[in-house]
């Protein structure tokens, strides 16, 4: 019969800090506090995995020169959330927390299915604090049977903040400001829309989910440029190191944050990135070396060097199609 006192002591352990104030439990654990604590310094990639190997860690059939980099390549999957209820209403969304509509939900399911069929496995997921991306991630993880992995929600992965245009109908805005001006706000690299008012419901300082964010970091409006500038710290400080550490990462995010990321990964110019459309719900797979440099995929659609999953002809059509849409 097993008793706690017969549990062997875990050698590699971080000493757990036990609350010192008396509590209702008044409990002193006979089980070593280190049981169950994730040991620091243990890299999951070094631990032999007893589960079935996933394609995510196998070698890919690419014709690059260096075979040594393939041994230490890391797969990173990006997925842009699908259609939201505000897309239907043709309203500028930005940081407004619109939900996925039925089509967006089914796009996410389809994305999850493609990943499942591809044998993808993840250790950690990153997403924004906006529900359309979070829900997309949840649907994908459910499809992959990976609901148990940690999810990190960060405002730095939010869609670009659309300032004073948030909540406004796109056509009305064109009628009011003229087509040219609106095109500049939507498609320039560094011209932000007009700022939102600090008394507005759209000012992040009035939203409890940003309560822990420094007020000086909260935008009143953003361009693609400033979106990238506030995204890069989480790439550099958290996501990049996780990938280098051997963690298999999926990022579920928004059009402009994913643009910012691929601009960085694929060294895309400012002009080219503003016209680039990442189709919703289609998993985009990057293979990175230990320095987080992209190993180009032969099936990539330029200027990206990562590969979309699914029917590539269909994806090409969608990339071209989205270019003509209002977004």
């Amino acid at each position, binding site marked *: 019969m097993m008793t706690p006192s017969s549990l062997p002591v875990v050698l590699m352990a971080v000493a757990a800090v036990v609350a010192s104030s008396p509590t209702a439990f008044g409990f002193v654990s006979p089980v070593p506090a280190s049981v169950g604590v994730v040991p620091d310094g243990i890299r999951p990639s070094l631990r032999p995995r007893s589960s079935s190997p996933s394609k995510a860690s196998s070698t890919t059939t690419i014709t690059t020169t260096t075979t040594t980099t393939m041994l230490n390549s890391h797969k990173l999957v990006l997925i842009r959330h699908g259609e939201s209820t505000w897309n239907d209403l043709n309203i500028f969304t930005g940081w407004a927390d619109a939900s996925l509509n039925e089509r967006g939900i089914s796009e996410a399911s389809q994305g999850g299915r493609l990943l499942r069929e591809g044998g993808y496995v993840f250790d950690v997921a990153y997403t924004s604090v906006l529900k359309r991306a979070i829900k997309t991630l949840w649907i994908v993880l459910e499809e992959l049977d990976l609901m148990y992995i*940690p999810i990190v929600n960060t405002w730095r992965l939010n869609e670009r903040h659309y300032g004073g245009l948030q909540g406004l109908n796109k056509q009305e805005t064109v009628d009011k400001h003229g087509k040219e001006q609106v095109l500049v706000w939507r498609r320039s690299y560094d011209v932000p829309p007009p700022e939102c008012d600090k008394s507005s419901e759209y000012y992040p300082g009035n939203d409890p989910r940003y309560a822990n964010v420094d007020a000086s970091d909260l935008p009143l409006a953003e361009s693609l440029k400033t979106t990238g500038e506030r995204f890069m710290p989480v790439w550099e400080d958290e996501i990049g190191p996780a990938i280098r550490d051997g963690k298999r990462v999926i990022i579920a995010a928004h059009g402009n944050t994913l643009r910012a990321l691929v601009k960085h990964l694929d060294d895309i110019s400012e002009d080219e990135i503003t016209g680039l459309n990442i189709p919703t719900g289609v998993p985009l797979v990057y293979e990175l070396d230990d320095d987080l440099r992209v190993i180009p995929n032969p099936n990539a659609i330029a200027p990206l060097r990562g590969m979309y999953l699914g029917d590539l002809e269909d994806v090409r059509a969608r990339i071209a199609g989205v270019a003509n849409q209002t977004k």
Partner: protein
Amino acid sequence: MFAAARSALFAASRNGARVSPNARSLPAALFQTADKHTLVLVRHGESTWNLENKFTGWVDVPLSPKGHEEVIEAGRLIRDSGLLPDVAFTSLQKRAIRTLWHVLEETDRMWIPVTKAWQLNERHYGALQGLDKQETVDKYGKDQVLIWRRSYDVPPPVVDRSSEHHPGNDPRYAGFDFPDEWTESLKTTLERVAPYFEENIAPVLKSGKTVIIAAHGNSLRALVKGLDGIGEDVIAELNIPTGTPLVYELDDDMRPIPQEGSFGPLNGRYLGDQDAIRARIEGVKNQTK
């Protein structure tokens, strides 16, 4: 009197004391301004193996359609109560995670940080996992099975590393070292729930955040046993209805503040139709679980 009460209330909230959002009258609200911390517990809804009458434990079965409905309703009850979770904890098992996700969706708090921990898992059922409950009774006898299910400290037979049910064979536990033989009783479940609560959850509550925990019958039993000081005999028989939010108000020492409307021996208060809940608590006692 009204004006004096109101200005005292505003003074208290300016000083950072927590004012209950559920205050029905200003004078009552005054008495609720002492520092208190809100903890919401939700037991996951019906799973597919509840329907199939199998011992589940750490097997990762999903919610049944009814289970989904139950916990969507739980989310609505929490939403309507005005409680706003700030931080969430759950297990590594999808039936609890999915329960939490429904609640976060209904309360429009999908963005809050969620920590998933094996220490909040259901009790591991050892070698009984996957077995049909009736077949097990036929095989071992009703009395033995009752001991395994309802005793406080007698665990079911162990599984070793050759078993699919040993955590060493599940990638989600890859970061942890489990012994070669594994099984759990309610007692040993508590021995991993209680320290986890002390070290990880209590500090969050003390910092002023409202915490929600979506977990399982036995991990929640372990939790309330410690919170309410419930005896071993009583806890083994205590049933926490599925999908029914259980709200605790705790003081700075994590001791429950008694609430009107709680059903003994718990100091927590269930949200929802109180008569229906009482009937369910009584009814489950007689069920197979």
